[in-house]
């Protein structure tokens, strides 16, 4: 249960056939994506709050509350919901990201109404005692030890993000810092719950074998009963100042036998960019580091053999300014500064030359095809729509994404690369064995 979704599904987006939506009178947004191929449904509730909304000094509370949401309500005591799901052979999980928290069940279609009844109940009925909160906090601390503290690669990732965001909470790990998790208590969890777990702040996504009208009827019956709380809660996040300094962060650890390199640039997200910019950045990531025919891979892995692996990734779905990643592993005998310089050289060349039309065509084909492949998975469709809506996109934005990819010009990609891939906006990270200098 619970995963930390620090790298949510990239923007590629699906033209779900037959998607319909409606907003209930209490403000809950409902999206239904019919998929009749198997007699199952995916039921997801998304809350528009994530770790970036953790109050100052209480890092990890969004994620901790996500754990505690499995602890039962007055109507359905601890464990009952999970037991019911397990008995019907359903699957359930939850995840916390920077901008949202989501809970889902995958069950046979006849159980959709029951899932709604339970999920609507725990939107307002959560009961927490210290006896429940304390051991669960230990579980979260173990989770942090397992995923972060024992792994130098995770430590570097955390250090790079912390350096990249000088002021904005994207620089704090989703799970929180250990010393702050240790202090989280029942009151913190309940205060956070009461602030964010409201119908106005939630999005219900139902994908699968259901008539939209039936899904809406069930939603009105179960979720419609929840009293409106007025306006949705405001997300007040510190704004990031203009980046001016190129930064290098290094983690040395005796457990490291294979060095690695990464660079992360602050760049606009789908929600903060000017029109077309997110699509240009998506294609830029693909051209630079999407697979074996990409520019960095071809020049530095295949031809110059400076690296054994190189890639790029644009995390477009975010509410505030986001990250554009480059990452790789050097070949034996190549130092990280050497690799760093080689990457800068290829980037400079990329900017100086016209964009290869055939390569751009292939990148567009690939991304547009992803939207078709996505239609094969109701769970994936539900995730993409939920994540997009929770980060400020509209259904139409998602549906028109393939058209915007097609329409992206080489000039737009060049401009995006020149504007955003500048080192003063970036942190470079080195992962190295113990007591060894980068050079």
């Amino acid at each position, binding site marked *: *249960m619970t995963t930390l979704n620090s790298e949510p599904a990239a923007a590629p987006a699906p033209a779900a056939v037959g998607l319909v939506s409606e907003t209930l009178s209490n403000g809950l947004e409902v999206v239904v994506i019919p*998929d009749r*191929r*198997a*007699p*199952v449904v995916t039921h997801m509730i998304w809350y528009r709050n994530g770790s970036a909304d953790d109050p100052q000094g209480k890092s990890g509370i969004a994620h901790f509350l996500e754990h505690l949401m499995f602890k039962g309500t007055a109507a359905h005591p601890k*464990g009952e919901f*999970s*037991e019911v*799901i*397990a*008995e*019907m*052979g*359903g*699957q359930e*999980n939850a995840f916390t990201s920077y901008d949202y928290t989501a809970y889902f069940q995958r*069950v*046979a279609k006849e159980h959709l109404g029951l899932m709604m009844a339970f999920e609507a109940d725990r939107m307002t009925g959560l009961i927490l005692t210290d006896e429940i909160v*304390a*051991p*669960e906090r*230990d*579980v*979260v601390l*173990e*989770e942090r*030890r*397992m995923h972060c*503290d*024992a*792994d130098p690669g995770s430590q570097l990732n955390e250090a790079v993000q912390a350096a990249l965001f000088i002021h904005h909470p994207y620089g704090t790990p989703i799970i929180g810092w250990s010393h702050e998790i240790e202090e989280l208590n029942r009151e913190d969890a309940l205060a956070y719950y009461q602030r964010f777990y409201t119908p106005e702040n939630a999005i219900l996504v139902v994908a699968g074998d259901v008539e939209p009208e039936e899904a809406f009827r069930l939603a009105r019956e179960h979720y419609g009963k929840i009293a409106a709380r007025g306006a949705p809660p405001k997300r007040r996040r510190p704004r990031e100042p203009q980046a001016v300094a190129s930064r290098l962060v290094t983690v040395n650890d*005796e*457990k*490291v*036998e*294979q060095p*690695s390199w990464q660079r992360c640039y602050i760049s606009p997200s789908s929600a903060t960019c000017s029109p077309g910019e997110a699509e240009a950045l998506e294609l830029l990531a693909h051209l630079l580091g999407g*697979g*074996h*025919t990409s520019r960095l891979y071809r020049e530095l*892995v*295949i031809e110059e*053999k400076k690296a*054994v*692996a190189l890639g790029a990734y644009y995390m477009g779905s975010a509410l505030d300014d986001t990250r554009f990643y480059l990452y790789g*592993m050097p*070949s*034996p005998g190549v130092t990280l500064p050497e690799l760093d310089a080689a990457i800068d050289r290829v980037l400079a060349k990329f900017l100086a030359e016209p964009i290869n039309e055939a390569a751009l*065509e*292939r990148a567009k*084909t690939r991304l547009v*095809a992803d939207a*078709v*492949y996505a*239609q*094969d*998975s*109701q*769970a994936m469709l539900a995730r993409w729509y939920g994540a997009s809506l929770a980060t400020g996109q509209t259904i139409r934005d998602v549906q028109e994404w393939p058209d915007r990819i097609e329409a992206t010009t080489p000039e737009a990609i060049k401009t995006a690369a020149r504007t955003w891939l500048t080192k003063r906006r970036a942190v470079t990270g080195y992962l190295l064995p113990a007591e060894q200098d980068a050079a």
Partner: protein
Amino acid sequence: MNKPFLEPTAKSAVNVRALTTPRGLGFWLVEDYAVPIVAVEFAFPGGATHDPAGKAGAATMLAGLLDEGAGDLDSQAFQQALDEKAVEISFHADRDFIGGRLRTLARHLDRGGELLRMALNTPRLDQEPFERVHEQMNARIRHDANDPAHMAGKAWRERVFAGHPYALSAEGDLDTLAALTRDDLRATARSGLARERVVIAVVGAISQDKARKLVDGVFADLPATPELVEMPRAPFAGLGDEVQAIDLDVPQTTIRFGRPALERDDPDYLTSVVLAHVLGGGTGLSSRLFREVREKRGLAYSVSASVATFDRASYIYGGTTTKNERAFESMDVIRAEILDMAQGHIGEEELDKGKKYLIGSYPLRFDTSTKIAQQLAHMQLDGYGLDWLVERNRRIGAVTLDDARRTARRLFGDGSLSVTMVGRPTKS
């Protein structure tokens, strides 16, 4: 020749036909036009277990090279050809088979089939990708070298299966990879990629005729018979109180444990799967181990156990990761649960819940074309027929409390385990 075996019924998860091509290859087909894509999953029995002596990693490296150039297309040309039509082809080596998959838009099916045919029939195994994939595999091995979960799994396997190929990693190690040559990989391809025992599943927007053509085009010209030596059954060593301890300076101890289990053809096999689920399975939220280790004591974030069945071994395998100071306590809790079940203490309610979960969750494995194709290929690899789609759940439903208690005694025996710990566990 067409055998419409299962009509769509409430009980069958999916409507599958077993077909034969004009050139005599059997395959399973699900025809479904809801989404305009086609997924193909296939596997050649053999796999990493058959890597040449001292050359572990051969099958894995071959799998990594099959999409790196074929026929008249070198690596870059082949990858560009895939990109041009958004065709996805990938291969992977497991202990007991080399598997692969194709996913393509229905309108590019012909090109996708052609590229897959080339990859399997005329792989180039050129020097440049050979060296590159070799370095990538080396990097992966160095990357994982001090990862606690990786170390624990590796050490556990090496101790339990000592002397058998199952003790070796399918990824090889730095020395065995250095010993590999392109000729070794050619030999691995020749001996392993044969049509006789290949299993194939095709799912999606494709007619029976087109599917037959696709399968013949890709597989019919492969060598007829694989050249594989007979593998002995794997031993199982290390049972007892002596924990295999590996020192690593980290705050947590990573634990792996296991013991021999029933074979797939044992009449009580499915009962043993239900029992393992009651012990440590499912989404984890309701198993005995989850309840005792995580919910009641907050000892760990994750804890699980399941039956792992391979061609030459079947065993219970589980693990958890917990604070160093509480590692032995966690292991005591796990041992106590296993001993309790070994004594036949199985409740009617937990058995019933476990059965319901396993039955009810089965359709969730069949909700995308890719997942359906994978399920159908694995059913064939495991030797099941089409009737298994219904029979599996019927048999789980028929497991009685007596079956469960009898099988628990066989499965958990004296409760002894082979245990590996990586970290700095301390007695508190």
